[in-house]
């Protein structure tokens, strides 16, 4: 006679339920997992994610060559091209992500699940950061190799600090925008589309931000990549300090401030979004 398991047996079985910080960490890992592993399973994505930005980098490098720019400007383009990978990841895989999840029908499940939404966003950010760093590194290495870019690193600790803070502030901004874009619904896609070339322009992805009007550059500094890239260029190129917008220590302080503001903002907007979801009951509705 085969053993039969009744519903009461299942219910009475002890189930380890995690809560508190353990639940938070497990949710982060669970959400980061598909971002990192998904890339390994679809290696050809890596090819396209590297080749397309690299084509853009090549175009801008050849423009600089055509007009006789100093060699450091070629390096500026290569660094900017690599950092574009992070901006595109934040834009399409962070800011727009909750909107996509809604379209796919996952958002309601996220909200219903016991894991905190903040942990889900953080998991997206960490997973995306790891995957994108690989792409950015590939663009950087290939760009450096193709165009023989020469680096002259002034301080590795400062460089790592700037990169780390830039990423914290940038992905914090992405977490904040995720809730905001969700509220915008169908316009989110267009907004993401819009935030490419204008951001490449004001953040100085292909030229020193100092070339812009001071107040334009100051306003653009609200985007973490603006100051992050400016500081990194100052630290890795011989002519960087002379083309820098403001001093590196000041940029580090501002990046710390931006990190705090964006993470707190992400938390506040997420709470607002969750309240709306409960009150109106329509936020997770796919109206297409």
């Amino acid at each position, binding site marked *: 006679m085969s053993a039969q398991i009744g519903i009461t047996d299942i219910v009475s079985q002890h189930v380890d339920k995690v809560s508190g910080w353990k639940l938070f960490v497990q949710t982060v890992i669970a959400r980061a997992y598909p971002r990192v592993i998904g890339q390994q399973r679809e290696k050809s994505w890596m090819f396209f994610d590297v080749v397309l930005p690299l084509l853009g980098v*090549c175009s801008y490098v050849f*423009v600089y060559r055509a007009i006789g720019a100093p060699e450091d400007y070629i390096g500026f383009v290569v660094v900017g091209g690599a950092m574009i990978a992070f901006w595109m990841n934040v834009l399409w895989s962070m800011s727009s992500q909750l909107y996509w999840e809604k379209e*796919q029908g996952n958002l309601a499940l996220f909200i219903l699940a016991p894991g905190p939404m903040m942990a889900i966003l953080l998991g997206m950010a960490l997973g995306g950061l790891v995957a994108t760093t690989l792409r950015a590194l590939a663009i950087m290495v290939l760009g450096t190799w193709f165009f023989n870019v020469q680096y002259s690193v002034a301080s590795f600790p400062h460089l790592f600090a700037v990169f780390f803070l830039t990423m914290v502030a940038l992905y914090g901004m992405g977490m904040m925008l995720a809730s905001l874009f969700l509220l915008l619904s169908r316009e989110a896609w267009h907004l993401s589309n819009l935030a490419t070339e*204008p951001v490449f*322009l004001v953040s100085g992805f292909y030229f020193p931000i100092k070339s812009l009007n001071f107040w334009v550059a100051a306003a653009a500094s609200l985007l973490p990549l603006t100051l992050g890239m400016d500081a990194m260029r100052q630290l890795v190129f011989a002519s960087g300090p002379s083309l820098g917008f403001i001093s590196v220590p000041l940029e580090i302080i501002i990046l710390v401030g931006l990190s705090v503001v964006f993470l707190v903002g992400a938390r506040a907007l997420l709470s607002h979004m969750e309240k709306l979801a409960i009150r109106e009951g329509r936020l997770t509705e796919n109206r297409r």
Partner: protein
Amino acid sequence: MQPSTTNPISPFWRSFRVSTWLGWQIESNWTDPLLFAIYSLVRPITGILILVIMYGVITKGNYASPTFAYIYLGSTFYMYVGSIMAGLSWAVIDDREHYKTLKYMYIAPIHIPSYLAGRGVARFLVTTISVVATILVGQFILNLNIDFSAIDWPLFILSMLIGILMLAMMGMILAGISLLIVQHVWFLGDGVASALYLFSGAIFPLEVLPAWLRPLGYFMPVTYWLELVRRALVGSVAQAFPTLSGLSNLQILGILCALTVVFAVIAWLVFRRCEHLAREQGKIDMVTNY
């Protein structure tokens, strides 16, 4: 019962006309007209401003140089490449993956290539607004030096007509391929547009490219189309560059026509073959969720 007399042109025209209207609605009805206008102008103009600032930084603002006109006009008219060529393939992806209507298109009495061409027209119209605005910005703010009385209008109109046809044919090739591939379809239009941007001399003369890459540029009809547009608008300024300076307008026009015919034949063969395979393999209604 009398047999109905049908105009053989009507299915093509009807598909084209209705899809043009549909494409316009998809492109524009997501917001109010003002926001749509801003959206349509901001992105392309800022894209070109990147080049303007790069140029200005290095040349200390020497916008009167022919190089500036070369870069500015090449980049401005290149907008059509992305919008028309990539737009046609995007229509396949949009209808199959997003709206999930491609399968209905195929069972409806419409002519699919005409339908796709119509979807491209909407993008063409939006891009034309951006191109005109960008040229006006260049002319009145950046000292682009286009003498409107000296523009070779017949050459400009002819090269635009052939160019648009050529881009539509290239787009049809991509649309055919998009019917078959399930992964990376999102990258296809952008990838080809990015590659052409690099190899067609849009923003720098082909001489800047390594010698082994230049033949790619000479095979691309976009190279000749952009050259003709520049020559029509700024005449001798464009001819100052060595790439095609040895060729007359008529010769370039001939090459453009020949390459357009070549790409039209390729487009017809590729689209027909891909469409057949997509039907046979059941890919018309296959949604990948990528």
